[in-house]
């Protein structure tokens, strides 16, 4: 605890050093007042918590580099810990790292928690942590976050400390370390075994059948005191929405995700479960390929942005469980969200105006969509198409197979549906999908001013300046970008009445940031 209780630092011009240590300071504060334990009701131990998720496949891998769906993510959170946890309030909480600091934003030192044991009994060492990170780096790595971690030039041990050196300064490295792909796993000869389920987390794996069910029992040696209330956790894969609803109604499971918005009202009417609807940064997008006509013309892009009824989409596709987005990938839960930006409404006349500016009387485009992009994508595309007709824009909705969608359609076709899970850090979101030439820049958009700002903001330490920069970037993406972002979707889950939940639920990821297994309890 090098930096106990610093005051909240938002809106203060603080020194460079102050900013870089800020995260650690807040994290330390978090340890003293554990997050997510705000409920007045006393938690009780015991019970079996069963979760039914609309994800999971028989081909799910145990390799952390390949985790990509809510099932494996939740299963991972049940058996693993990471360096740093994101608290329910969005602040960083020390987990396997007890502290972190950096003088220049390039070299980062993480203190590693002592005396914590893996399920198999061995004590966690700094080498385990290094191997867990290195699993995603280097020539042979096959990890999904290989690109993200390519900014790391070196990872080494220094006593009980972990030292990470970056290629260039990045104030947000601690946030990167919260990525769910980086659990702390036991290493032999500097390598983790990607097929092992051994970890330091709250529950020990008893059995696992990919795509069917995972059963876990409480880890008696778990180092956190006020966590992991259930005796057992079972995570079931229930892909069919109606089957999930039925499983909840008949008491087979206590928690389900992806509740069909159309049935939320009726489910609440049954009185067996309550709906948790958590506003988040996740958003649905319609990227347009900015490299070729017609989308290379910003007027065409603006015409499309004014040609859809965002509120109707929120009401219909999300059943009201979400918020209108202003073509802005930065969400209300982000630190530098630009709330006062001029909101675009459904305005067919203005869309026509922009079409004429582009020298067009009418526009014919094809929008490819599949529900693999997001649940309700085909319906959303149909609504978009209907809205746009009033503006002389003819959108032909082409429903394509779910199978192979990310491979065959996304980033291959000029106008498609997609989604982003949202990122805790602005830089992370922009670098991933909006910087020129980024791997997942799915609109192939490029803007010089934006790229400059992105680079400058990454190492800018003046809070006000940084905020201004991020606001300008959001403005650019919204009015010049090549992505239509109609809405932010809430994380919607239904919880059986018998389960106790904290007053504040994490919004960084679904299911209380995957941590429902250790934060919730049987009431």
């Amino acid at each position, binding site marked *: 605890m090098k930096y106990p209780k610093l005051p909240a630092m938002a809106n203060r011009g603080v020194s460079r050093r102050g900013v870089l240590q800020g995260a650690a300071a807040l994290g330390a504060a978090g340890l003293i007042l554990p997050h997510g334990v705000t409920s007045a009701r006393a938690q009780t131990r015991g019970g079996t918590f069963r979760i039914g998720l609309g994800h999971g496949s*028989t081909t*799910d891998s145990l390799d952390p580099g390949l985790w*990509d769906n809510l099932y494996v993510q939740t299963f991972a959170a049940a058996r693993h810990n990471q360096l740093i946890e994101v608290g329910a309030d969005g602040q960083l909480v020390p987990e396997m790292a007890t502290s972190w600091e950096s003088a220049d934003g390039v070299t980062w030192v993480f203190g590693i928690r002592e005396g914590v044991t893996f399920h198999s009994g061995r004590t966690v060492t700094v080498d385990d942590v290094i191997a867990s990170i290195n699993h995603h780096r280097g020539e042979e790595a096959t990890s999904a976050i290989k690109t993200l971690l390519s900014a790391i030039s070196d990872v080494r041990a220094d006593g009980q400390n972990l030292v990470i050196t970056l290629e260039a300064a990045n104030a947000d490295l601690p946030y990167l370390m919260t990525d769910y792909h980086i659990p702390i796993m036991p290493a032999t000869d500097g390598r983790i075994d990607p097929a092992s389920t051994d970890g330091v987390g709250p529950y020990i794996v008893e059995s696992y059948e990919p795509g069917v069910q995972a059963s876990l029992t409480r880890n008696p040696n778990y180092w956190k005191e006020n966590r992991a209330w259930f005796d057992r956790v079972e995570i079931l894969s229930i892909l*069919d929405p109606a089957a999930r609803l039925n499983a909840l109604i*008949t008491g*087979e499971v206590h928690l389900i995700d992806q509740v069909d918005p159309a049935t939320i009202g009726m489910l609440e009417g049954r009185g067996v479960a309550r709906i948790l609807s958590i506003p988040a940064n996740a958003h649905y997008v319609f990227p347009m390929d900015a490299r070729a006509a017609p989308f290379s013309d910003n007027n065409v892009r603006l015409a499309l942005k004014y040609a859809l009824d965002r509120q109707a989409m929120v009401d219909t596709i999300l059943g009201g469980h979400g918020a209108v987005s202003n073509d802005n990938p930065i969400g209300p839960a982000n630190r530098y969200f630009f709330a006062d930006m001029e909101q675009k409404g459904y305005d067919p006349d203005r869309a026509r105006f922009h079409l004429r500016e582009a020298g067009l009387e009418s526009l014919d485009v094809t929008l490819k969509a599949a529900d693999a992009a997001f649940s309700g994508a085909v319906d959303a595309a149909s609504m978009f198409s209907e809205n746009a007709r009033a503006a002389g824009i003819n959108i032909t909705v082409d429903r394509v197979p*779910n199978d192979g969608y990310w491979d065959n359609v996304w980033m291959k076709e000029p106008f498609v549906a*997609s989604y982003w899970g949202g990122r805790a850090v602005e830089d992370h979101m922009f670098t991933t999908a909006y910087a020129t030439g980024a791997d997942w820049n799915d609109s192939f958009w490029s803007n010089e001013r934006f790229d400059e700002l992105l680079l400058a903001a990454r190492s800018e330490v003046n809070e006000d300046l940084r905020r201004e920069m991020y606001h300008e970037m959001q403005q650019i993406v919204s009015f010049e970008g090549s992505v239509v972002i109609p809405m932010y979707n809430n994380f919607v889950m239904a919880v059986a009445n018998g389960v106790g939940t904290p007053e504040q639920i994490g919004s960084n990821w679904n299911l209380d940031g995957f941590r429902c297994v250790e934060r919730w309890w049987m009431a």
Partner: protein
Amino acid sequence: MILTRVALGIGLLFVVSLVIFWATELLPGDLASQLLGQSATPETLAALREQLGLNDPAPVRYWNWLSGALTGDFGVSLATNRPIADLIGARLGNTVFLALYAAALSVPIALTLGILSALWRNSIFDRAANAGALGAISLPEFFVAYILVLWLAQTGLFPSMVRINPTTTMGERLYMTFLPALTLTLVVTAHMMRMTRAAIINLMASPYIEMARLKGLSPLRIVLRHALPNALAPIINVVALNLAYLITGVVVVEVVFVYPGLGQLMVDAVSNRDIAVVQAVALIFATAYVGLNLIADVLSTLSNPRLMHRR
């Protein structure tokens, strides 16, 4: 004759494996891009392809698979690294169990209804049984399942999903899988019933039935003792076809009742391009189909002495 059929069947399995392999090859994307999904980059894709051995040309990979399969080694699932035998073992048991359960319910019902409606043809009973059966097959399987869940599971009579583990006893198992079995029963009964009825009625105009009728035998006796034995061949064939369907075609029911069977495994493996699993399951399905048809042919031959001495 049976030997020739078995040899033909084995040839058939080979063709099936070739067709499936070829079709899976034609699908866009491969295992590596499916595993990485939205987060794939060219660099990680290349590394993963190398690791999974996807860079060999297709014929080489097919040959590798075939030579392994011929020696009884079906390899490992590329996605999970688990031996195929492990992956499939329990699921195969589940699939066969459900198929037999549904068959045990549906075959007697279908035959009884079919014989009765042939006996009382054109009566109200016949019309009602027909309309009911047609109504049941014209509803999609998942929809039948939802309605059964609404009536029988939400009222607490039966569980809405199947959760089996190694300690489940036979009785519990029969209880838990009742709804999926009932759904499948409703789906396949109509076809078998209509065929039974049609096969019997088809014979009712034959001279020997006319003869029996003139002798003053009771209609029930005519149907059971004179018409049914000669109608057995087509009935056995349609029963075999439906049994094959119960083993190979029930992915939708598996999804709705969260039943870990082969259908879901096959669909998952196809969408992830996990070719070794696709091939193994496809071969099991094809074997079931070929085997059941072979048994049906043998039984129909036995049921009709004339067929035995045809050649």
